[in-house]
């Protein structure tokens, strides 16, 4: 009964867990996004909370492709809300996360945790729009907010852009690390006893 290939039931789990993951993510981002600067920190919060969902998913399916499907769904949905670069970033990130999990033979909690540290980087591409498409963003700003404001934004991003990006990556990894620790605790405390995992 234990084939290595993704079966129908695994695909259903994939879609369902993706739904939970993305809804929780959306709630976190909209709550955090109320404070403008905190919005940039959303990878941190998403990493902390969504790690549990991710870990439960991979432990339940334990097969090659599970992470990749989640990454694809993530990318598709994020791209649909306008963050176009999401799908481009999600696939390579998904592949790397998948390979890490595979290295642990889909049985090692450590490797699953490591793979999530990578997976949470999927939160970064949506922000890439700000860094890479700065020019057109600036163009729009200039047209509507006046030359000064547009220039100011342009300067800000070009000077500090790479730093902000680096900070976000670091924050995403830290969030993921905290998240998998939390996930491990919750799993031992609840899910294993309840027989879900």
């Amino acid at each position, binding site marked *: 009964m234990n084939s290595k290939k993704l079966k129908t039931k695994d*695909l259903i789990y994939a879609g369902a867990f993706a739904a939970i993951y993305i809804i929780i993510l959306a709630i976190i981002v909209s709550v955090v996004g109320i404070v403008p600067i905190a919005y940039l920190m959303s990878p941190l919060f998403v990493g902390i*909370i969504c790690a549990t969902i991710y870990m*439960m998913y991979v432990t339940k399916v334990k097969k090659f492709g599970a992470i990749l499907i989640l990454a694809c769904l993530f990318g598709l949905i994020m791209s649909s809300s306008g963050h176009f670069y999401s799908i481009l970033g999600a696939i390579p990130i998904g592949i790397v996360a998948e390979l890490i999990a595979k290295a642990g033979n889909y049985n090692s909690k450590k490797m699953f945790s490591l793979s999530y540290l990578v997976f949470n980087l999927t939160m970064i591409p949506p922000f890439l729009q700000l860094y890479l498409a700065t020019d057109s963003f600036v163009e729009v700003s200039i047209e509507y907010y006046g030359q000064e404001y547009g220039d100011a934004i342009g300067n800000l991003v070009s000077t500090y852009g790479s730093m902000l990006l680096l900070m976000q990556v670091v924050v995403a990894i830290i969030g993921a690390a905290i998240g998998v620790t939390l996930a491990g605790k919750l799993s031992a405390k609840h899910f294993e006893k309840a027989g879900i995992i």
Partner: protein
Amino acid sequence: MPKINFDPRAKFLVFIVACVFCMNVSEPLPAVAFGTFVWVLLVLSGKPRSGTIMYLTFMACTVWAFLIITFTSTVWTMPLMALFVYGRIYIPMIMSFVFVFQTTKISEFMAAFEKIHAPSAVIIPFAIFFRFMPTVQEEWKGISQAMAFRGIGLKFSSIFFHPIQTAEYILVPLLSSCVGVMDELVAASLARGLDSDKKRTCFLEVSMKLQDYFIMMIALGFLMLK
């Protein structure tokens, strides 16, 4: 008003064009033209009410942004204008999102995907994703009610001071009860013959017709204008 059923693939293209277009075009006139295009599509697809509401909001944002910039562009009106500009950019994207996802049936999606030879490993999760979203919302609602009864409701103080505890109170019942639903859903799907290795048929006609090519051309036309 007769309902026209556009092919999911054509709808998807319109949606992609919408995303690219809206994020890259800053002049109001083309934006209005595109918005009107999507509004017409929504009305034709059987969503006149929500389509019109969104369109009117969109037009209101455009008009207000225009008025502010022409007459009173000061530092005070800037945040207000930012709001209107965002509305002007994002609403057509939302409208095209509705156009794709709320006027298409799951079986149509699956059939359209199959026609472009997408693997079932993509189709089934995609379909389940949408089907499961309302379920997650329902469970969330039930859990937040249960939390309110026990006095551990989602207040600002609980999120701020005991974030981990609150996360535990939400995640544990949410995941437990969702996994329960998932298992039942899998059982019911398998027992009715769903098999990722088998190619499914569809009770709806999924084929590209003249109207689909027409709207695709218009959408691409917008893109080329830019």
